[in-house]
């Protein structure tokens, strides 16, 4: 299986934004334009996250998804405020291929089965935003990193896997936006709690960080800061992975 390089775009509709530790989001530009350019450069997937959907209880990604799907022919994952099977189906109707759920699933784990039942589990991505609360102890947060769930991450990952998720996008809140590297202790705990593919997100600061993720056994990485702030390109990332003998799609 090839290692996936996914472009992650946090969106505060209609803008592409970027924050640090899931706060202080700055506007960067037009998300659809950025998505197009990452696609042209060889990204394996586009992942859109509406970061204010849970906060404002609204869904305004439809137009962006449809616009993107007109010229971006790789999988598009969409997350942010998804609370029901009907919402998930609507998002797929507009051109998305997978839906990413976090808060919705923690508050109502039955949501996983509901969406998997109609779209298939391969369309269900569990978004996990993990915060370290003490040495080697992590908890999944909800509402874009603002609220505590009270759970140990290993327990939640096992439960969600039993309920039928297709893959996990694992974000380290402590690392994200810092460019200081991924949290491999976090990855290891999640890897030990599930068999589904895991995409690492949050903290990639260099090509070496990304190679390290592949060598540690992640199934892919979701990259934001490094790409949006033009510190590297998808092409460069894939070349460095290939040079390290990691199989990537060319």
């Amino acid at each position: 299986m090839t290692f996936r390089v996914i472009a992650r775009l946090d969106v505060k509709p209609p803008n592409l934004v970027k924050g640090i530790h899931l706060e202080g989001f700055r506007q960067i530009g037009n998300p659809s334009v950025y998505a197009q350019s990452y696609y042209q450069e060889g990204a394996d997937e586009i992942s859109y996250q509406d970061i204010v959907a849970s906060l404002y209880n609204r869904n305004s990604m439809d137009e962006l998804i449809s616009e993107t799907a007109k010229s971006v022919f790789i999988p598009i994952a969409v997350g942010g405020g998804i609370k029901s099977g009907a919402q998930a189906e609507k998002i797929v109707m507009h051109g998305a291929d997978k839906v990413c759920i976090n808060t919705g699933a923690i508050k109502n784990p039955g949501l996983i089965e509901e969406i998997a039942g109609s779209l298939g589990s391969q369309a269900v991505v569990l978004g996990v935003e993990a915060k370290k609360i003490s040495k080697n102890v992590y908890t999944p947060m909800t509402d874009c990193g603002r609220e505590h769930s009270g759970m140990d991450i290993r327990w939640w990952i096992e439960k969600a896997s039993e309920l039928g998720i297709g893959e996990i996008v694992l974000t380290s809140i402590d690392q994200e936006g810092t460019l200081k590297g991924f949290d491999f202790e976090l990855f290891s705990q999640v890897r030990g709690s599930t068999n589904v593919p895991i995409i690492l997100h949050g903290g990639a600061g260099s090509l070496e960080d990304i190679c390290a993720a592949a060598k540690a056994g992640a199934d892919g990485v979701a990259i934001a800061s490094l790409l949006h702030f033009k510190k590297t390109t998808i092409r460069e990332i894939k070349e460095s992975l290939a040079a390290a003998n990691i199989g990537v799609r060319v």
Partner: protein
Amino acid sequence: MKITLVDYGLGNQYSVIQALKYLGYASEIDTDGTLISHAEILLIPGVAAFGKGMQNLKKRGQLEAIRQFSSKGRPLIGFCLGAQMLLRNSDEDVTTGGISLVNGEVKLMNSEYCRIPNQGWHPLEIKNSSTFSGFQGKFFYFSHSYRMALDDAATPGGQILIGNEFVSAFFFHENILAVQFHPELSGNTGLEFMDTAINTANIWT
């Protein structure tokens, strides 16, 4: 040439329609079976679960129409779930049979070799086909937990290697082309595959 897409209320028609548009093909969408009998080429897309997909086809009157269409030997193409539903039945939902136009079954992937779902890009190995030989070694996007297992393993098409096992990537038989991966999500390579498949519809070799 116009492609008739079968909309069964789930599936991701939008991406497929956009891909067809990009390639310059006209398309129409059938939602109740009435457009199927006059279709030139029928395409069944798919992002859904087998049981629900089959239920919807029945409810919308499309199931019989598809069988009739195929019995006339007109080209029928299925993507992902759309391909799997063409077989007899699926492990995903043992209470609901498939459209049964191809001799084979849909089986759960082997977790010994493969993370389930099989989600990601794989290079194709082409088997006994000159039409698709140009896609040897090219990468396509797969997203599935179940795989197509044909009664006749020598059916031409393509496969991918997962661990020690070959998994069917696509096959063609008479008027039917069944594609396990998502050509509409496989970048430029996928678009080329779609173009080739449509241009050589019914004369695939």
